[in-house]
């Protein structure tokens, strides 16, 4: 994992997990690495991973089976899609639109549609 972005590390870990859910690398119902395993894999403090897992649990994307571990929730993909679409519309698209205006690029030119 590359931590070049300026977002807080625990958010970047959430983003990474969500991306793996969207791409299908993590299937619904699948068990994911423990806080410690995941921390060791990417060289990050387990407390940081714990925060990420808590955030995703709060959003219903993963869930904790006490004593067994964390699993991808049923319907996680749909939840991530909804969340990421909103994020795109609210935050990413306005930046693109602003940039397109600045550079004088017409939507038809950028997306090849009329």
């Amino acid at each position, binding site marked *: 994992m590359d*931590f070049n972005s*300026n977002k*807080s*590390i625990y*958010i970047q870990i959430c983003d990474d997990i969500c991306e793996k859910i969207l791409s299908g690398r993590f299937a619904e119902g699948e068990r994911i690495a423990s806080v410690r395993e995941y*921390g060791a894999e990417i*060289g*990050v403090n*387990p407390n*940081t991973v714990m925060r990420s897992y808590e955030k995703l649990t709060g959003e219903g994307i993963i869930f904790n089976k006490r004593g067994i571990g964390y699993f991808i929730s049923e319907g996680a993909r749909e939840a991530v899609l909804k969340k990421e679409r909103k994020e795109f519309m609210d935050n990413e698209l306005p930046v693109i639109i602003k940039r397109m205006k600045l550079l004088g690029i017409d939507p038809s030119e950028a997306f090849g549609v009329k």
Partner: protein
Amino acid sequence: MSLPLRCTIRLIHANDMIQIQNLGFSYGNFPVLNNINLQLEEGRIYGLLGENGVGKTTLLTLLCGLKKPQTGSIIIDSHNPYKREPSFLTESYYLSDEVAQMNMSAQEYAKSYGKFWEKFQIEKFLEIMGIFENDPAQKMNKMSCGQLKKTWISFALACNTRYLFMDEPTNGLDIPSKAQFRKAVTKYTSEDSTLLISTHQVRDLENIIDPIIILDRQDVLLNATLEEIASKLYFDYGTEKIEGALYSELVPGGNVQVLLNSTGEESKVNIEALFNTVHLHKDLIKSVFNK
């Protein structure tokens, strides 16, 4: 009304496994630590930062019982380290910056000396040596500086102690070993062990150390988790100069600017910028962090 109660809880918090109170230590007439108060919680990997000569090594050697506090006290899970009780020694390990070049192979050393730590595991030692691509059959006095350091790190982790104190562990490690060190520290320590790692190479330990302790001449400037730090300070990585930033530093691709967090938005903590900010605004930082 709730405030005095919270203070009491803070003082006798059950998770505070290491309690340092009014600690003082001088070398002759030269005071190094003066009236130091610190509480360390169980199961965390603390980063101990500070300029040269502020007493990081002195603090670590006091914690592991090599030195005796001249004033104040250290209590680690009801032990006084300087009493050097076997029940404490078997649960603690101090890895110094300078390590000994023993006239025997790493494996022989681990087999003979591992016995002093009840939970030492030779298999774990060999496994970590393997991760570092270090040959356990090699004589320790024939090893390069980096190989020797990695041998000692492997030994320290294989002792499975509850308290692990490491002084500049990444000194002398090559680039891949630094990444291996970060992984090993996460993978091979247990959930209830407490680590305190001093370092100048904050980039080597970025993402691993949390909470951060910043020690100053005879003072503790900061002892806070990354979460607390990010809630109180905002790290901006944009290109626009911000009025009223506490600290700003040019980095490739823009600035790191540190300001008080007024929006509650959480940013990535840059530890070097944090260190410099804390040093520029000692009183402000203390008042912001001391609730």
